[in-house]
């Protein structure tokens, strides 16, 4: 346990060094009526050796940001820094950054080995060095036996590995991955998620990963930036993002959430408190930069698994009647119609031999686990 912590500290220290930084980046496409602001004053710092994920729905600007870092597009305003140097004006072939494309974009007129060696060849490396590196990459992605195949003769998962090997072969300072797993089926996707983590660990290269799949982002990343409508809403470790969403969009986009309105009260013992619609008060975490003052109404979120259904309505923080009970195997979802209006979902783990004994229509209370309430900025 201590050793693991030590390693984590090491990684954190390394991360302190910034690999890629976007400073006030704005990207506008088109003009006049067709004008679209794809990125709106985005500033973000991505640490060395970090597995960093840009997460958001389609059209949120995550791929645009990736393309600006790769050099395929140029920002309307702002700068892109790589290890502190401004690379905004450099064409893609002068940036020590490589990309794994969404549909792999393997060269159809070259073999697997030809594809992987292409970057090194363009860098003018001698043939023996290229050959050795190609073999090394093929071993790294476990594709040695397919070296001389045409790229059209290999499966989607294999193409994915070749695309990875091709992008890693020139040993880029940063690897950009544009939804690389979206074309794979579920089983293969899970496999490649683990594979990607392994590759990042083995190569020690900074990965910037673009996805719209929240689960993928949570399981793989060191840090996640949640984006929407051209803005970065929140940056943090997956746990922070999940447990402490700062905005409604983030809370909604990642995981299931219960939204409630509450009144902000004066802190008690240094801890902010809110008054729930039921009139009861509970401690809450406030996000940075919240501009609500005492007495204001704020939105709060409670994750379904951070709450509990209790038999006595008065012993819970909220009360209501059970509207629906859905059994999921590992857990059961209880949909409670609150007495104050609205509904609230509670997810409780199923333990062997512990029948809850609740029935639809029962009057119940909802208790929160410690530190379950998160206030939102909006």
């Amino acid at each position, binding site marked *: 346990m201590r050793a693991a912590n030590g390693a984590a500290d090491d990684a954190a220290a390394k991360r302190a060094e910034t690999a890629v930084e976007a400073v006030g980046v704005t990207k506008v496409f088109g003009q006049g009526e067709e004008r679209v602001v794809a990125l709106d004053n985005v500033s973000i710092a991505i640490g060395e050796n970090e597995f960093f994920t840009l997460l958001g729905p389609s059209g949120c600007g995550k791929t645009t940001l990736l393309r600006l870092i790769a*050099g395929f597009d140029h920002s309307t305003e702002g700068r892109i820094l790589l290890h502190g140097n401004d690379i905004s004006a450099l064409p*893609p072939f*002068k940036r020590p950054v490589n*990309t794994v*494309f969404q549909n792999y974009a393997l060269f159809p007129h070259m073999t697997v080995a030809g594809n992987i060696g*292409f*970057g090194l060849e*363009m860098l003018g490396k001698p043939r023996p060095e290229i050959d050795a590196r190609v073999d090394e990459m093929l071993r790294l992605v476990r594709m040695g036996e397919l070296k001389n195949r*045409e790229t059209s003769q290999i499966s989607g998962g294999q193409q994915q590995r070749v695309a990875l090997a091709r992008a890693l072969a020139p040993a880029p300072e940063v690897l950009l991955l544009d939804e690389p797993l979206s074309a794979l089926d579920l089983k293969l996707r899970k496999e490649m998620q683990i594979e990607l983590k392994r590759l990042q660990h083995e190569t020690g290269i900074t990965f910037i990963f673009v996805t719209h799949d929240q689960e993928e982002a949570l399981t793989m990343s060191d840090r996640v930036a949640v984006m929407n409508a051209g803005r970065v809403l929140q940056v943090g470790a997956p746990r922070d993002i999940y447990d402490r969403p700062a905005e409604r969009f983030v809370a909604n986009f990642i995981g299931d959430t219960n939204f409630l309105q509450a009144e902000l009260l004066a802190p008690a013992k240094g801890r902010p408190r809110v008054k729930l619609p039921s009139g009861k008060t509970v401690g809450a975490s406030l996000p940075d930069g919240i501009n609500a003052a005492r007495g204001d109404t704020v939105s709060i979120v409670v994750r379904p698994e951070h709450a509990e259904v209790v038999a006595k309505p008065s012993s819970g923080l909220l009360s209501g009647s059970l509207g629906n009970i859905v059994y999921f195997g590992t857990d059961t979802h209880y949909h409670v119609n609150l007495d104050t209006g609205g509904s609230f979902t509670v997810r409780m783990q199923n333990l062997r031999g512990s029948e809850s004994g609740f029935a639809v229509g029962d009057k119940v209370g909802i208790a929160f686990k410690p530190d379950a309430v998160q206030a939102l900025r909006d």
Partner: protein
Amino acid sequence: MAIAGTQRTSLAATGQNAAEVAAEAERRDIRSRWLLSTPALVIITLAAVGPLLIVAIYSFLTPGDYGNVVWRFNTEGWVGVVLQKDIFSDQWQWVDAHLSIFWRSVKLSILTTLTTVLVGVPTAYFIATRPGRWRDVWLFLITIPFWTNLLIRTYAILDLLRTEGPVNTTLVRLGIVDKPLQLMFTDFAIGFGMTYVYLPLMVLPIYASIEKLDFRLVEAGYDLYANRWNMFWRIILPLVKPGIIAGSILVFIPSLGAYVTPRVLGGGKNMMLGNLIDLQFGQGRNWPLGSALSITLMVIVMIALLYYVRVASAERRNYG
């Protein structure tokens, strides 16, 4: 067939009877297939195989005094393609005129193909990379020359290249040359004219292949440190090669048999194969020689096509 037969057998009630039914069905199948292809076969026979056969037969007959042929077997037509008897010494010798015409035809056709590739690739690339609406406008402009008669367009070229024409006037005025160049009635004029005439046939197939090009591959190339030069030679050119090959065939074959362009721009002096063949059926009054020359031209074209098929099938193997 065998498989289909077995299936039918297994579906029918009794073995012996079923086999007969299957055989009958198969016969009917074959008969209807032949009947359906009859129109195509008739057209091919009337329009291609028949005329070709006549040409082949004529090439082995004796020339008549006033054109036409005399129905007597004679191989002189074929010998005459490359050999002739010296009038004085009765010695067989090469027909230099024919050989130089062969050479000019092949040379000018290859040159035309090369120049159309050189002009066609950038043109097609330019068009294919325009926004959608403009692409259609440019393609439309490319096809406009097809609306005008070839002869008129060729005479227009002639007018451009005249001694007092705009090209020469400009050159003299700019001080590049002292006196007007002899541009008309040269191989240059023929090559220039054929390049102009056949350029659309090169641009269109190349455009089709560039339009199909996945530009993410271009991005991938740039991402992997390919500069613009390497990008063109290592990524774009190999991917649009099928279009270039198709365009080359479309340009090279009609170039070999070109008639109007060399006739007008070569001034009857710088003949190509098409003009030589025409001469034998006209003033030359040597139909067997003309027929033999026609078949020679066809053989050259077929060699070029076979080469194309070989390259194309190798290409298909590469792309799977």
